[in-house]
């Protein structure tokens, strides 16, 4: 067994996962109305290709990718398009964005699917195009279009493909259940990913608090065609081991360079859920129209993992799980460390929704933050070796340049510093604020530089026009004077 690496800091948290792993993955009854935001991924929003009133079939493409960093969107069930308009979306801002609304007819009638008989006969480019057309994004939570991460480009070579089944944040168990129940599908997906990236070796990383999932994966692998080409590595349970850069450190002992990407050191990482989605897309022709979502928390009586069609209102999932929820007790999307509260339960489940928490004590609002006592616990807990305390001072003073000098942009917003802070200072909140503020200032600077250039150009042009006008006037005057003298001379002669 190879020696595992480690990352600095981190926390050992109470997993709280047993609550949601008691039952197998269940399906939610079909909802009457599905609301599909056009942007469920990082990049440009998809563009609708259907009109209000159109009849759509399950799996039919309803919006096409716009630009490179974008993916398509598909109808999760058959029915009619009832609206294409701005609706509230699950986002920390609580803002609205363009959504396609489908009224389902309950027939679940599939569109014609075109599975690939043998993916081994397809080129890596074809596979990526199919993955893009299937609307697949990273299902770990960030939602980055997967086909881009499967394209190492000409400058890079993929040495290691890592499948992330760590799922380090408490309460969340969707990847755990997927590995327990659908190990075969995940391995099929990994085989396709290996072909698309041409990776030398492949590793599946699972945290040691998921013995059943580890066992299921190992059993499946032993009879799979990929046996011998994939290693399953069990990593110690420590938050945030499931974060991309931290997991790379644990597995390879290498660090992703500052401002760089894993591909810079020959590594590509995907979530196990994404691998499963890719297997469905290639081998069965099914686009990404549903995902596994963990519904858990103290207020959820019948907690567990659900296979949910995108666009399903969160309240339908909560009702299905017999949840008691009130306005005062916010619903959180994501885990207790990195999640954000949703405005209400009418919002839809999207591609990035891995977990819905209701009534989690840890997530209760804290008392007023107390002054920083400079204990330094945050620096000890930070998995990226930052100095959260220094960053906090600079962010608070809005001295953004200083904060950037202290590597603000290396912060992964994992929330470890928040968790350990004895003064309960919302440190990550300050860092998020400072990050978006810095990016905004840079944009404004670029815009003002462009405006200056345009203004200068305009002035130069006006100056030139003025000179030309003066020159023309002078010439006209000279010509007039010349003709007058000529006339005078003629008159004198006569």
């Amino acid at each position, binding site marked *: 067994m190879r020696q595992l690496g480690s990352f600095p800091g981190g926390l050992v948290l109470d997993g709280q996962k047993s609550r949601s792993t008691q039952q197998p993955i269940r399906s939610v009854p079909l909802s009457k109305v599905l609301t599909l935001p056009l*942007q469920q991924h990082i990049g440009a929003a998809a563009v609708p290709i259907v009109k209000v009133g159109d009849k759509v079939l399950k799996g039919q493409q309803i919006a096409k990718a716009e630009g490179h960093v974008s993916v398509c969107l598909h109808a999760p069930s058959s029915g009619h398009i009832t609206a294409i308009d701005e609706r509230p*979306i699950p*986002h*920390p*801002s*609580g*803002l609205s*964005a363009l959504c396609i609304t489908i009224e389902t007819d309950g027939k679940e009638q599939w569109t014609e699917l075109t599975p690939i008989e043998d993916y081994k006969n397809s080129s890596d480019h074809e596979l990526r195009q199919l993955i893009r057309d299937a609307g697949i994004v990273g299902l770990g939570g960030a939602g980055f279009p997967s086909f881009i991460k499967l394209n190492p480009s000409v400058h890079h070579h993929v040495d290691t493909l890592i499948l992330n089944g760590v799922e380090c944040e408490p309460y969340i168990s969707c990847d755990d259940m997927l590995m327990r129940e659908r190990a075969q599908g995940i391995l099929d997906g990994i085989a396709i990913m290996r072909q698309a990236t041409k990776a030398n070796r492949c590793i599946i990383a699972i945290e040691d608090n998921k013995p059943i999932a580890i066992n299921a994966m190992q059993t499946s692998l032993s009879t799979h065609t990929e046996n011998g080409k994939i290693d399953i590595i069990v990593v110690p349970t420590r938050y945030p081991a499931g974060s991309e850069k931290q997991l790379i450190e644990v597995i390879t002992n290498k660090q992703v360079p500052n401002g760089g990407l894993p591909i810079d050191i020959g590594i590509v990482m995907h979530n196990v859920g994404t691998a499963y989605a890719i297997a469905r897309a290639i081998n069965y022709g099914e686009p990404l129209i549903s995902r596994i979502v963990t519904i858990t928390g103290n207020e959820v009586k019948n907690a567990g993992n659900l296979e949910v069609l995108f666009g399903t209102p969160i309240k339908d999932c909560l009702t299905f799980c017999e949840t008691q929820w009130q306005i005062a007790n*916010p619903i*959180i999307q994501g885990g*207790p*460390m*990195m*999640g*954000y*509260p*949703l*405005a209400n339960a009418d919002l839809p489940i999207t591609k990035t929704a891995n977990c819905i928490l209701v009534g989690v*004590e*840890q*997530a*209760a*609002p*804290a008392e007023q933050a107390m002054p920083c006592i400079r204990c330094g616990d945050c620096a000890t807990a930070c998995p990226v070796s930052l100095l959260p305390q220094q960053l906090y001072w600079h962010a*608070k003073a809005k001295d953004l340049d200083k904060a950037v000098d202290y590597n603000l942009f290396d912060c992964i917003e994992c*929330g470890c510093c*928040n*968790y350990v802070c004895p003064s*309960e200072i*919302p440190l*990550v*909140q*300050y860092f*998020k*604020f400072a*990050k*978006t*503020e810095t990016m*905004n200032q840079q944009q*404004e600077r670029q*815009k*003002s*530089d*462009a*405006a*200056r250039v*345009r*203004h200068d*150009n*305009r002035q130069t042009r006006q100056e030139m026009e003025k000179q030309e006008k003066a020159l023309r006037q002078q010439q006209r005057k000279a010509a007039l004077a010349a003709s007058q003298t000529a006339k005078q001379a003629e008159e004198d002669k006569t």
Partner: protein
Amino acid sequence: MFTAIIAITFLALVFGLLLGFASIRFKVEGDPIVEQIDKLLPQTQCGQCSFAGCRPYAQAIAEGEVDINRCPPGGEATIQALANLLEVEVKPLDDECGVEQPKTLAVIDEERCIGCTLCIQACPVDAILGAAKQMHTVIADECTGCDLCLPPCPVDCIDMVEIPASTANWRWPDPDQPNLGNLGQLEAEQVKQP
């Protein structure tokens, strides 16, 4: 005594030549402080500071003729940046010049536009496109929101609209300025654990 005089004269000559050479070789074009000040100004070119654009105002600041608090589009942030650069006290915005407002964008009501080209001539950054007797339109990405196109329009067909909030331009709120209506603020407290 004589050697000392010669030595000093010689040194003076050498350094004089050196300085003379340096002043020609490393000559600075223009006044760098004006450039620096101009860089901090928002380049709206709106003239609310009573100068004909950002650069003339930067020039005047550099010469110490005016205060640093005469730029409403830049607002508090610009005053702060200028104060840091020039090492002077921060002052509140001069209300004589106007008040700090959210950034806006000019939008031409194309139904009403008669194609007079007056706004095109007024735009300091060439952000309006059109020709005589043809309807005009604003290039949204280039508009600085200076309001200068409003007065010349004979049919009042230009509106200044606030840039709508979207998930693309949304920013995390400042935790020091509690905003009860904002979900982002709630979140900070919610990820906290006992």
